[in-house]
Each structure stands twice: as C-alpha cells, then as structure tokens.
C-alpha cells in the first residue's frame, strides 16, 4: 500500500470526480442509482455545492448554498473546468430522510442529519438511543460506500472513457 500522505494527495482527484459523477447521476440517471444501491428510494442534491477551479494556475472557489438555490452557476463553473469538492445530499431510505455533505478529497461526512429519534427522557434510555443513532449513521455510511463502489467500478471500466465521460460532458455543455 502507498504511504498515507502520498496516497491522500495523489488520489484527491478520485473523490472530486466521484462527486461530479454523482451530481450527474442524480440529475440524469437517478433510476440507475436506485437500482444499483440497495434500499435507496430517492437521492437529491441538497443545499450546498462547492466547486474549485485550478485551471490556468489560479485557484477559484465557487460555493452555492441555500435550500432553493439554482445550480446553473455550478454548471457554468463545470464548463470552465471546475471540479466538485463538496456536495450536500438528501436521501430517502424506507421513507426516512438523511441529509449530509461529502467532502471530495477526504470523503469526510459533515453536517450529517439522521431521521429524528425520540427525546432522551431517562438515563437508562442512553444505550437504546446510542444503538438507534449508530444504526442511523450506519445507513448513511453504507449508502455512501455503495455509491462510491458503484462509481469506482464505472471509473475503472472501459465504459468510463467510451460512454460515461461523453455523457457527463454532454450534460455539462447542454
């Protein structure tokens, strides 16, 4: 295995490509995501997208946030060569909603909101509450793992260059 700090920096791009692909899939092929990711009912872009453009040796950061924000500026940034570095997602599994942000370079999960759990009324409830929250965190983590594995298999296949990149470019420049 490669050294940790070397591999972290060398493969940052993989997480950023993952998020760009995921945005494309959510917009253009949600059916395929639902079919390949167990239990997933719907997946939508949430209230925050961050992009970075380092073309022409200039670092430009574009952040789009807000529940009703339009994503046109994000597409425009992609047209100029930006990549997605953070993506907020809203997903439904078994009629319950999770919302979280994935950071591309680290795959950290930030601002993870699980479905609401009941209030903690008794000290003896702590164990039940922890186990319930652990289960709910696990559902979101499993979903991210499935999405990333799905992406990896596509990314490492011959399809990636032959059909996926042209489709993503078609979406960006439509």
């Amino acid at each position, binding site marked *: *295995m*490669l050294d*940790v700090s070397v*591999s*972290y920096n*060398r*493969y*940052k*791009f*993989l*997480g950023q*490509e*993952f998020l*760009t692909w995921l945005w494309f899939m959510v917009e253009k092929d949600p059916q395929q995501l639902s079919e390949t990711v167990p239990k997933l009912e719907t997946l939508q872009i949430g209230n925050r997208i961050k992009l970075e453009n380092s*073309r022409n040796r200039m670092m430009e950061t574009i952040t789009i946030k807000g529940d009703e924000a339009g994503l046109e500026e994000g597409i425009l940034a*992609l*047209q*100029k*060569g930006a*990549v997605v570095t953070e993506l907020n997602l809203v997903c439904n599994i078994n009629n319950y909603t999770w919302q979280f942000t994935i*950071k*591309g*370079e*680290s*795959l*950290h*999960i*930030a*601002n*993870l*909101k699980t479905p609401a759990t009941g209030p*903690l009324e008794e000290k003896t409830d*702590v*164990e039940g*509450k*922890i*186990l319930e*929250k*652990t289960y709910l*965190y696990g559902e979101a*983590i499993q979903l991210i*793992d499935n999405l*990333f*594995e799905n992406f*990896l*298999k596509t*990314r*490492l296949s011959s399809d990636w*260059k032959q059909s996926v*990149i042209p489709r*993503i*470019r078609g979406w*960006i*420049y439509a």
Partner: protein
Amino acid sequence: MGILSSSSSITRYLVKGKPDIPAYEFVEKALKANSIPEIDESVSGKVIGWTSFETPYRADFSGSSFSYGSFFVFSLRMDKKVLSPKIVQKYIAIETEKRLKSTGREFLSADEKKMIKDHVVNLLNLRIPATPNIYDLIWDHDKETLWFFTTLKSANEELETLFFKSFKLSLIRLFPYTMADLASDLSGSHKDELARLSPISFYNNG
C-alpha cells in the same frame, strides 16, 4: 457535534486488528491506563486522554460504561489552558521590572528572560482552568471499523496516536485511495488499474 447531536461530522477509520481476548477487559484496562488526568490545579497547559461518553467530565470506565451492544463507545478529551498573549506580556513586564530592581542591572540575559517567561506561564496555568474539547467515537470491534465524530485534523492526529498507544492497534483513515484499496470489493485487476489511475478533465478541451 457528538453522537447524539442533531448534526454530526464523521471521520472514518479501519482498525488494523482486533483487541486482545477477552476484549472487554483489555479495552477497559487500556482506557483506565490512558484516561484523562485533571490539570486544573497543575502547571500543565495541555493534556489528552480518554473519557467516558456518559460522564465526559469524570472519566469513569467501571461497569459497562463504554460497551453498548457490540460497540465500544467512549470519547477523546483534549483539555487546554488558553492564555491570552497580552496577559502573559503584562506579567512578564512586571516580573522583569522586579528582577531588574532587585539586581540593580539595566538588562537581563536571554536565559533570564526565558526563565521569567516560563515562570509566568506556569503561574498563570495554575490559576486558570483548562478548556475541555470532547470528541466521541464508536468502535465496532467485530467489523474492525471506527467512526470518530469530528473532522478536525488536530483531533484526528491525536486520536491516531493515543489509540495506538492505548490498544497497540493502528488506525487507517478512510479517504478515496484507502476506501478504494482496502474497503471496497474491487477485483485484483481493478486494483491494478487503480494504481495506474490519473485524473481526467470534464473540461471540453481537456
């Protein structure tokens, strides 16, 4: 931003190996040996150790206080005394003046200045309480995974160090490469392809 918060941030790890058998006793012993000491009445400026999830201000690992179902749940606590540089500067000036007066000299040597600074910092550290920062974790020892409830770089580095010191088990942080190489169900040929992978651009002229 802990386990029971309405909004959490998580850094994920693989744990390289399982705790010694019997796991519960092994973990309890290691937690007790590396629990956080109190530094409010000492000159220490910073201390790091384990504390219990339910009583984070009193590190108590007795009974079943860190075992929930098949998970170990406890917290990393980092206590730090934060001294205002202006206060330090003020007391250094007072001590320097006293010293010059008592010796009848006009200047102090570099060693004397350093001694005065250390003395002032120790004195102030004795007077102020440490600010605690608490970060929860969930360790699934069957699946050899750990979720750490912060994405702060400094806290993650302290976790990796203290975890190895306490349990003699390494933590491998999960990020795109380690997720692909160690945590995904990729075939050998896919892993070979991964090693050769380079970025592509979606930019039309890329």
